[in-house]
């Protein structure tokens, strides 16, 4: 009861303080930083910032970080106020110090909650006006209450606690600054849970609002609230008493058993929550492709055929989880240990064979966000193997902060082992898949993104779709509010699949014509791809939360940002998402399902030729100056930097570096070689051949020969032979 009366007094007192009104006003202004100088939402050169990134993500994160610092200032100043005025001894004798401290902190937290609500209300008109038809009020408010408010509370608890421990304004400010710095340091760059002050948003989607980052944001805030509350409770143990110093007061503080107990309980809760977080895998930072090949090679070597495979999948959009059951009718069993690979977030509920439970063990070594599970089947033939599983799918560390897997009410995206198990011991020649998901989402399956159309309405807001696959593997599964637009150019019939919300933008900016332009250009310069059956072709829009795109027979993905209002209304943008759209289209000729390239030498690759072709198209579309500035100059800058890099000049020192530095330098070199060095080499080849026409003739010949199946993995040497050039000729100075 004493707490509530003290709380009312403190709240009233704080509201009468001018300083708190100043801090509140500054907090209200702090999201403005997100429009101008502080833009933490990660946008890489190949993705465009969505409108939600620009007008929700950035302002909220800027307000979160700046406001947190402001609330820390007031927490420290308020903590010091009584000591400064010399009334702390009187106050301690008049009110129970622990209840008083709690009341003061609670009052500050109450005011910060009110300021958060005001902040959200203040920016609604502007945000809604900017996002127009893309504005979603629920998503907007969730950002403020998942990121801003809890971070402000964490900051208040830390600052108040630090002051109580140190009893020095400058020292607590320095320690708080160190904590804040930790959150921004490179140590926290890939450790998203360390970022207590600056929660991560990889990218937001406008057309397919996804709450994955909100989920992780709220979870990380909960973890840090526990830790900060633990630190705050610890500070109460350190509260000075009986004119003692820190050590003496601490020893006496321990006698109030509830304080050390609550400190330990909160700290342990925070640590446990951190440890069991379901969001990000704890594997390597680079995708281990070789390990995947190794698994498949082993499977191909030992696997027995299975008669049938059936998968029954149910998505729960509210909890973001998948529950599934996979059934395999086996002919023979593989002797010894059988293995299956799954998303690391899933838990296998049971494995049965012929109705009998089978014991299994999951080895929790994260490989590309997956765990392997081992089991031994009884020596019986022709029985049914049933695996039941489920859980919240984890994002591999190597993919973060791009969301490759997410289950929400607006969008579902899953890949490979996120959906069904990858069995290392049995291969079925096909599979039947049954998928239950929210009724308003349109599902597409596999790398070709075939739309599922056969469904049963369950009457509870969900539908169950059924389909048969030619192989027992689901490369990609996407469901969202999609529409399919069919149109034709001279040579092609397009199935243009995009978010329903973009219908008006597609009309307004004549996206169909742009697509026709790209395909006409490439067909004219390089020839028609053989894999477009009957001229039909699908262009599939991916959510902005995913990373990059890909193409497969008769299908190419394209990024959501390519069609966002700010992208489509800015023709002067440099290498932006629209050009990435062109890039992805050109992969229909080079790489993916176009020609395959032998990229073992680290330079020669499909990416290089695609970048070069994009440059040529952009040059034709926007002019030579534009293409030189945004392409050639950019390539030269990166190649010069690569040449001058100390470790490239002195590789002997590379060996002396810790492994992760070596990996960083190697990854950078690979990227520069593919995307910058090779296009420059192709530009040199163009000069030596005598110009663009001659180069186009060579490329057309190569593409035509490949169409006849004369090449498989096209090598650099073969390219040189076609050009009549040598490696020396294309060496860059």
């Amino acid at each position, binding site marked *: 009861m004493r707490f509530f009366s003290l709380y009312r007094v403190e709240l009233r007192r704080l509201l009468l303080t001018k300083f708190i009104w100043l801090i509140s006003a500054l907090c209200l202004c702090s999201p403005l930083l997100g429009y101008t100088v502080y833009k933490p939402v990660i946008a890489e050169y190949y993705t465009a910032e969505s409108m939600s990134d620009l007008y929700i993500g950035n302002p909220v994160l800027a307000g979160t970080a700046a406001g947190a610092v402001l609330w820390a200032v007031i927490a420290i100043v308020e903590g010091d106020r009584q000591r400064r005025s010399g009334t702390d001894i009187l106050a301690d004798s008049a009110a129970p110090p622990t209840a008083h401290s709690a009341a003061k902190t609670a009052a500050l937290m109450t005011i910060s909650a009110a300021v958060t609500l005001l902040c959200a209300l203040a920016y609604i008109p502007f945000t809604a006006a900017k996002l127009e038809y893309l504005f979603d009020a629920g998503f907007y408010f969730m950002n403020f209450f998942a990121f801003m408010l809890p971070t402000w509370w964490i900051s208040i608890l830390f600052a108040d606690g630090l002051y109580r421990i140190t009893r020095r304004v*400058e020292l607590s400010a*320095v*320690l708080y600054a*160190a904590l804040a710095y930790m959150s921004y340091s490179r140590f926290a760059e890939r450790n998203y849970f360390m970022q207590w002050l600056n929660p991560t948003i990889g990218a937001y989607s406008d057309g397919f609002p996804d709450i994955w980052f909100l989920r992780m944001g709220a979870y990380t805030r909960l973890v840090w609230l526990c830790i900060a509350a633990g630190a705050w409770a610890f500070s109460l143990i350190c509260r000075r008493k009986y004119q003692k110093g820190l050590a003496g007061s601490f020893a006496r503080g321990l006698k109030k058993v509830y304080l050390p107990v609550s400190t330990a309980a909160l700290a342990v809760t925070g640590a446990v929550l951190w440890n069991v977080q379901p969001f990000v895998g704890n594997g390597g930072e680079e995708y281990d492709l070789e390990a995947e090949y190794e698994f498949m090679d082993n499977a191909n070597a030992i696997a027995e055929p299975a008669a049938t495979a059936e998968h029954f999948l149910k998505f729960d959009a509210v909890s973001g989880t998948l529950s599934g059951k996979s059934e395999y009718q086996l002919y023979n069993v593989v002797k010894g240990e059988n293995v299956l690979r799954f998303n690391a977030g899933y838990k296998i509920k049971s494995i049965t064979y012929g109705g009998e439970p089978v014991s299994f063990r999951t080895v929790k070594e994260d490989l590309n966000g997956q765990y392997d599970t081992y089991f031994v089947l009884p020596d019986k033939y022709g029985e049914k193997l049933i695996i039941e599983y489920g859980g919240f799918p984890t994002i591999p560390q190597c993919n973060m902060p791009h969301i490759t897997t997410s289950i929400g009410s607006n969008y579902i995206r899953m890949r490979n082992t996120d959906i069904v198990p990858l069995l290392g011991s049995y291969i079925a020649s096909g599979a039947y898949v049954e998928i239950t998901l929210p009724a308003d989402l349109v599902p597409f399956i596999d790398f070709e993104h075939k739309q599922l159309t056969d469904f049963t309405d369950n009457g509870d807001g969900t539908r169950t779709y059924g389909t048969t696959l030619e192989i027992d593997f689901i490369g990609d599964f996407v469901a969202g509010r999609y529409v399919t637009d069919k149109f034709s150019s001279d040579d092609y019939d397009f199935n243009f699949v995009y978010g329903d919300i973009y219908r008006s933008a597609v009309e307004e900016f004549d996206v169909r014509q742009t697509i026709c332009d790209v395909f006409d250009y490439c067909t004219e310069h390089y020839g028609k791809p053989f894999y477009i059956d009957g001229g039909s072709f699908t262009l599939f829009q991916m959510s902005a939360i995913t990373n990059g795109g890909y193409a497969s027979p008769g299908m190419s993905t394209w990024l959501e940002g390519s069609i966002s209002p700010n992208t489509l209304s800015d023709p002067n943008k440099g290498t932006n998402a629209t050009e990435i759209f062109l890039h992805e289209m050109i992969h229909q000729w080079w790489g993916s399902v176009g020609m395959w390239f032998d990229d073992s030498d680290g330079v020669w690759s499909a990416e290089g030729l695609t970048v070069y072709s994009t440059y040529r198209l952009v040059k034709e579309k926007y002019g030579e100056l534009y293409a030189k500035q945004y392409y050639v100059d950019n390539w030269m800058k990166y190649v010069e930097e690569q040449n001058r890099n*100390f470790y490239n000049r002195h590789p002997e*020192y590379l060996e*002396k*570096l810790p492994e992760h530095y070596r990996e960083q330098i190697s990854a950078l070199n690979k990227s520069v070689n593919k995307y910058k060095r090779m296009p420059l080499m192709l530009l040199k080849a163009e000069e030596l051949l005598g110009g663009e026409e001659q180069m186009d003739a060579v490329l057309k010949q190569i593409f035509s020969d490949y169409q006849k199946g004369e090449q498989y993995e096209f090598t650099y040497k073969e390219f040189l032979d076609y050009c009549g050039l040598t490696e020396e000729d294309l060496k860059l100075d």
Partner: protein
Amino acid sequence: MTKVFGYELKRLLTSGLFIAMLAVNAVFAWYVLTTEIIEGIAYTAPFSVWSSCAFIGKTLPIAIITVLLLQAGYYGKQQKRVEILTSAAPMTYAQTLLIRTGVLGVCFLIICLIDSLLGAVFFAAFFGYYGFGAFIFPALLEIIPCFVFAVGIGHIAGRLHGGLIYALLPTVFIAGFLGVTGAFDLFGGGFFFSYPMTLPVGVDGEPEFAINSVWLIARLIYLAAGAGVIFVCIAARPKIKRA
């Protein structure tokens, strides 16, 4: 006078603030070494003189912030309360100010030595490099004018108002970390990142180390300005209000 110097020095070196800030400086120095210097500054070797100067320049703002925080103690309310007592000591105001400057200088040098020691450990452990002799002269050119100027400004700010020294802290932070790159970069962190990029590359693929004359003049200006401000502080001796 030596006794007072020793007492003041002991008081600062054993203060919680200095020890905490020394730890902050050391952690930050190691962070700079392992994240930025390891890449090599301006494409030079991580153990080149350019990289060494950039390392010193990057760590100097935190060292100067430490010095200003310690200096703020000399102009705080608690210090003012005992001013009447301390002023009874047989020392002139000039001596007091110089002692305080000297004590701050020793604290600053200790921080720089710790940072340099970490740098030496880093160069030796990561690259087997031990030729630290070439780093000393440019480092002294970086740290001495920076210290004299900052302490001079700190003294005059403290004389005007005790809280003004705290107001200098964000200025130091901005000047140190937000991309000042010219020859007048007080700390040198930005200058040593950008200047070698403008120089011709030698046969070994790196620009040869040379002290830029404009930068040298800027250092002399900072040194003279700092010394001048300290002199002004001494000349304008404050009046002690007696009850």
